[in-house]
């Protein structure tokens, strides 16, 4: 152990005791996208004993701009599984568990129950509030990170009785006001910066260091290098409410979380075996004659990604919100572009 972790062990507030504590700890990382791909190598290389990686998504070409854990050869593969393989190559002395599924109100408490820290690297509020609530109910420290173009936020919540994410932002947004990276873009070095801050705090939590910066919203803007560290206090009534719920309440669906399901024609080739679902009225022009296109009224298979489309994307988006399963997307482009894509596919 000494050689591998020597540079940490030599650190004054670290030493052998902290390294041994880290070596018996368990981190659950939810989301292996931008932030997850930045966080995970630091946890693995530092010697966190067990890392559970939860992500249902697959690697796509547009991920590679910032998710440097992945390579072109990984496109189409499950991120949780690829991440576990890469981390195993980095540190074969630790335990890695890939869980390629979404986390929701039904699975959250079970998935986090054995964790010493949970890191929220997701891109939607529904999951963030569910993870927060699961951690509050089980007294597990919760490190979250979030991005907006060139700016990022992170905080350690629920650490030794400190404030939780709901103490900062009590309710999830209920309408389409907070966009995510898929819609507005993200500056790639930002994921490394915020991911690094998250990993730093998680390692301090796991190693038992006294300098954990709990209940402080850390913000950083990479355009101006403006930064903040703003403290927030526990909302004891809200914490008590979450702890005494019979079960975690689902967060109401809102437009922002559906942004991740937005697809453009250029994304289609990255989906494995998609079925295209025409949500337009029967007889609406232009008619599309393609075996991979079905009407919404037809029975939809559960084992293929569904891509809903209409003339402009608006109706497809509304329909996508009503289908309660994973792997449902909608096309946000004019139907002519989609038809052009289908024609190209026929000729290829």
């Amino acid at each position: 152990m000494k050689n591998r972790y020597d540079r940490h062990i030599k650190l004054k507030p670290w030493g052998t005791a902290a390294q041994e504590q880290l070596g018996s700890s368990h981190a659950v990382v939810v989301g292996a996208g931008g932030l997850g791909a930045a966080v995970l190598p630091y946890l693995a290389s530092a010697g966190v004993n067990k890392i559970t990686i939860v992500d249902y998504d697959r690697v796509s070409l547009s991920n590679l701009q910032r998710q440097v854990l992945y390579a072109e050869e990984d496109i189409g593969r499950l991120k949780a599984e690829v991440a576990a393989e890469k981390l195993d190559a980095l540190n074969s002395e630790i335990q890695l568990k890939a869980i390629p599924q979404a986390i929701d109100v039904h699975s959250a408490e079970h998935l986090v129950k054995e964790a010493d820290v949970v890191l929220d690297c997701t891109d939607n509020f529904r999951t963030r509030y569910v993870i927060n609530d699961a951690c509050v109910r089980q007294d597990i420290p919760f490190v979250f990170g979030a991005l907006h173009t060139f700016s990022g936020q992170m905080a350690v919540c629920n650490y030794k009785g400190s404030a939780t994410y709901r103490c900062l932002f009590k309710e999830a947004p209920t309408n389409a006001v907070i966009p995510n990276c898929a819609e507005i873009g993200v500056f790639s070095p930002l994921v490394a910066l915020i991911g690094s801050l998250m990993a730093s705090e998680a390692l301090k939590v796991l190693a038992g260091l006294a300098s954990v910066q709990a209940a402080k919203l850390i913000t950083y803007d990479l355009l101006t290098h403006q930064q903040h560290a703003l403290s927030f206090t526990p909302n004891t009534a809200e914490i008590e409410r979450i702890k005494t719920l019979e079960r975690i309440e689902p967060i109401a669906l809102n437009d922002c979380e559906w942004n991740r399901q937005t697809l453009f024609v250029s994304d289609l080739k990255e989906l494995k075996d998609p079925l295209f679902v025409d949500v337009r009225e029967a007889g609406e022009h232009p008619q599309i004659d393609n075996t991979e296109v079905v009407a919404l009224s037809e029975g939809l298979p559960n084992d293929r990604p569904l891509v809903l489309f209409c003339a402009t994307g608006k109706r497809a988006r509304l329909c996508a919100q009503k289908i309660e399963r994973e792997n449902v997307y909608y096309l946000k482009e004019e139907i002519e572009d989609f038809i052009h894509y289908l024609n190209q596919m026929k000729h290829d």
Partner: protein
Amino acid sequence: MEYTLNFYGPLSELFGAHGRIVLAEGSTVSTLRVALEQAFEGLSDYPYTLAQDGAFKSDHELLSSGAIEVFPPFSGG
């Protein structure tokens, strides 16, 4: 009393990075919220939290003289 406002994330894209608002001395954070949502159309659509002097403030707290930071949650990951 005039307060300097600093908006962040999507709020800065809507209202600019800085703004100003005038409130009576001794105003609380909840008074500020009402005034902000009247002065900045569309702000009430957003969740946001208000900080001053390095700390977020709850609605019943009194404002001090410092600049007011207006932070929405971010979503991307």
